[in-house]
C-alpha cells in the first residue's frame, strides 16, 4: 500500500542554508499492518508523511500510495489516504457535523451525511455535534480530527503523532480504532517518538534519525539486531550509532 524509495527533501535551515530533512528514506507498509515511524523530534518523520500526503513534493526518490505515485497522481493519492497531523487543524467556525459532511463531500462520498452521522456515533461526539469546533476541548477536537481523516474510509491511514496533547482515555480510543482499522485490512503509517505507543501498536517499526532510516523490522527483529530488550534501549543504541549487532 505504501512504498517509499530513496526519498529526499531539503529545506532551508535557520542559517539560511539548505538542510536535508529526509535523506534517502526507503520503507514499505502493507495492508492490514500498522507501521510505526519512530524517531526523535526533527528526525524527518513529519516531512516523510507530508510527502506521502502530497502536501510537499520530494526533491528526489519515489513514493507510491495505494498504487498511485505521489508526484503524478496526487488527487488519487489523497483520495486513498486519511491524513492527520499536528498541523491539520479543524475549521473553527464549523460544527463537527458540518466539518464531517464538508470533508466527506470533498472526498467524493456519495452518502456524506450518513457517513458523518455514523462517525459522530463511532467517536462519541454527537453531544457536541452542533457546537463550533473552536469551542471544543483538545481531546474532543482530536476526536473530530480523526473522524474527519477517516470520513471517506480510506485504505491507507497516515497519522503523524496523533496522541500529542491527548489524555489517556482519548488515546486509548484512538489505539482501539487503529487496531480495528488494521483488522479491517487498512494500512496504517503511524509516527511517534513515544516508545510505549510504538511497542503497543505497531507491527513493524522504521527507526528514523536525522533524515535517515537506521533500522526496519518487527520489534522482535530489532531486539535481536541490537541485543536490547526494552524498545527505549533498542532505539538509543540505534540512534547513538552503535548500530545493529
Amino acid at each position, binding site marked *: 500500500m505504501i512504498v517509499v524509495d530513496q526519498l529526499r527533501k531539503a*529545506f*532551508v535551515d*535557520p*542559517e*539560511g542554508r539548505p538542510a536535508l530533512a529526509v535523506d534517502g528514506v526507503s520503507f514499505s507498509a502493507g495492508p492490514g499492518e500498522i507501521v510505526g515511524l519512530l524517531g526523535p523530534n526533527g528526525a524527518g518523520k513529519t516531512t516523510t508523511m507530508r510527502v506521502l*500526503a*502530497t*502536501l*510537499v*513534493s520530494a526533491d528526489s526518490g519515489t513514493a507510491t500510495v495505494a498504487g498511485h505515485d505521489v508526484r503524478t497522481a496526487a*488527487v*488519487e493519492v*489523497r*483520495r486513498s*489516504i486519511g*491524513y492527520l*497531523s*499536528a*498541523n*491539520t*487543524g*479543524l*475549521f*473553527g*467556525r*464549523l460544527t463537527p457535523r*458540518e466539518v464531517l459532511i*464538508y*470533508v*466527506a*463531500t*470533498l*472526498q*467524493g*462520498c*456519495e*452518502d456524506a451525511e*450518513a*457517513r458523518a452521522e*455514523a*462517525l459522530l456515533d*463511532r467517536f462519541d461526539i454527537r453531544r457536541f455535534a452542533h457546537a*463550533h469546533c473552536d469551542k471544543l476541548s483538545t481531546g474532543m477536537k482530536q476526536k473530530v480530527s480523526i473522524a*474527519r481523516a477517516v*470520513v*471517506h*474510509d480510506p485504505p491507507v491511514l497516515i497519522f503523524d503523532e496523533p496522541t500529542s496533547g491527548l489524555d489517556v482515555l482519548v488515546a486509548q480510543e484512538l489505539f482501539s480504532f487503529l487496531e480495528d482499522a488494521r483488522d*479491517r485490512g487498512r494500512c496504517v503509517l503511524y509516527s511517534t517518538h513515544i516508545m510505549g505507543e510504538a511497542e503497543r501498536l505497531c507491527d513493524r517499526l522504521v527507526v528514523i534519525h536525522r533524515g535517515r532510516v537506521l533500522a526496519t523490522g518487527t520489534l522482535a527483529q530489532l531486539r535481536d539486531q541490537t541485543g536490547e530488550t526494552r524498545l527505549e534501549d533498542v532505539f538509543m543504541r540505534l540512534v547513538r550509532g552503535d548500530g545493529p549487532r
Partner: protein
Amino acid sequence: MKEGALRVEASPGRVLRVIVTAELRQHLRDPLTLVFMVLVPLVLYPALGGVGHLVVSRAQASADARVLDVAIEPAIDLPANLRAVSADPEASVRDGSADIGVRRIGDQVDLWWDSRSPDSIDARGRVVEALTAARKASAERQVRAEDTDPPERRTRESAARFLPALLLFTMLTGGLYTALDLITGEKERGSVETLLSTAVDRRLVLFAKFLVVLGFTVVSTVLSLASSWVSAQWVLGLALPPTTILLSLALFAPMAVLLAAVLVAAAAWAPDFKSGQVLTTPLLILPLVMAAATFVPGLTLTPFTAVLPIAGLALATREVVAGRIDGFPLAVAFLSTCGWAAAALAGGARLLGREDVILGTRGSAQRRLRGDFRADALGLLAVAFLALWFIGQTAQAADVVWGTFLTQLALFVPLALLAPWWVGLPVRSTLRWGPASATDWARGALLGLCLPGVGLTVQALQGLVLHSPSSLFEGVFPADSPLWLLVFAFGVLPGVCEELLFRGAFFGLWRTRAGPVVAVMGTAVAFGAFHLSVFRFFPTAALGLVLGLFSLRTGRVGPGMLAHALNNSVAMVALSYGLDVGFSWPMVVLGAAGVALAVPWRRGVAAV
C-alpha cells in the same frame, strides 16, 4: 461503522460550490465580517459624512456671523458683518490689526489680505460682495461676476473626486479582512492543510477562496455605493441618477477582480496573520494614493492616463459621476483594468502554486530565527507612513511649526526606538547609536554643506523630464516665525529624527538579510517616497542615498544627523533670505564633493 464509503467523482463545479459555501458559512459566522462588510459602508461612512457636514455647516455659520475688520479708504456702507477701522489698508493687514485692507481710487480697487488667515480670506469675499453692491447702488458701470458652474454641478464634481477613493477603501476593507481570514488565518489555524489533503485539485481550493474574497469585495462595494447614493441625497442634497451609480459599479467590476487577486496573493504570501497585516498595510495605502489622481489639478482622463492602474479607473469614475461621459477613454480605462486584473490573477495563481507559500513554511518565527527582519522594516515604514498621514499632516495643517515638532519628536523618534525593541534586537547597535570619531563629525559637517548641491543637481536633472512647480516650498514655512525657530524645526529636528528613523531603524532592520548597499538603496527609496511628493521623490531619494552611504562609511548614525541637519538648515536660511538658488555648475561640483565624502571607498570601512 458502515464499511467502505461510496465514492463518486465530484464535478469541479460541485466542488467549487461546496468550498465556497463552507468558506462563506465560516466567514459570515465571524462577527468582524459584519463590521467590515456591513457596518463600515452602511453606517460608518454616512455617519462620518453627516457629522462632517454638520461640523462644517456650523463652522461656516459661525464664521459668517463673526464681524471682521476692514481698513477701507474711502469709506463705504458696509454690511453688518464687516466693521470699518480707520487705518492704513496695507499696513493694518501686515500688522494684523485689520482682516482686510481696501483702497479705492476711481474705478481702481486695491485689496490687501493674508492668505494664511481664514478670517482674511472670508473678509475678502464679503468686501468684494459689498463693493459690487456699492457699485450697483451708485449706478456705476456694474462689474458682472457670475459663476457659470451651478452649485449642484460643483457639489457633483466634489462627490466625483471623492467617490473613487471611497469605493476603493470600502473594497479594500471588505476584501482585506476576508482574504486574511480565509487564507492567512487558515494557514495559521492549520485548516488549509486539512483542505489541501482532500482529493480536490489545489487550484480549485484557491479559486474558491478567490471567489469568496471577490464576493465580499463586490458586496462591500455595492453597499458602499448604495450608502453613498443615499448619503449624497440626504447630506449633500445631490440626486445622482441611478444610471451613474450602475455605470460606476460596472467600471469597478474589474477593479474588484484586480484587488481581490492582489489581496489573495498577499494573504497567501504572508506566513501568518501578523505578517499578513504588516504586508497588506501598504496595499491599503497604495491604491488610495493612486486613486488620489482625481484630486490632481489638470489631470484628466485621456486614453493615456486611462491605462494607469487604479488611477485610470478612478479618473474614469470621476468623469462618469461628474456627468462627462466620453466612451473611448472610459473603454480604455475599463479594458486596461481588466488587463491589470488578469495579470494580478496570473501572478497570484503562480504564487499560490508554491508549497512554501500555501503551507506557510516561511513563518515569521522562522524568518526571525534566520535573522530576517525585512518584513518588520516594511511594517515600520507602513506604521510611520500612517502616523505621518493621519496625525503628522493634520497637526502640520493646524500649525506647521508645532506640527513638525510633534511629527518628529512624538512620532518618528518613538517609532525608531520601539521597532528594534519590538522585534527583539538590541536597540543601540541596530540604530548604530554610539560615539563617532572627530574626523567623522568633521566629515559630517562638510557633507552637510555639500548636500544642497546633490539635491539641486538631481532636481535640475528631474526638471528635464518632469516639470515641477517653481518653488516647492512657497508658502509652506511661516514667514513671521523667527529664523532660529525655522532652522530648529525644519533643519535640526528632521536631521536628527529622520536619520534615526531611516538610516537608524529602517536600515538596521533591512540590512539583516540584505547586503549593505542594497539596504542603503532600499532606505533611500523609502526616504524619497516618505516625503509624499512626486516632485521631491528623486531629490530626497538622492539625499537618502548619499546619507546612507555616509552612514556605511562612519558606521554611526550621528555624523549623518549632522549632515542632514546642516543641509536642511542651509536650505531654510536660503529660503528665509529669498535666495533663489537654481542649477549651476558650482552646485554640481559641490554635490560631487558630497558624494566623494560619503562613499566608503575602502572595502571594510562600513561598520555594519
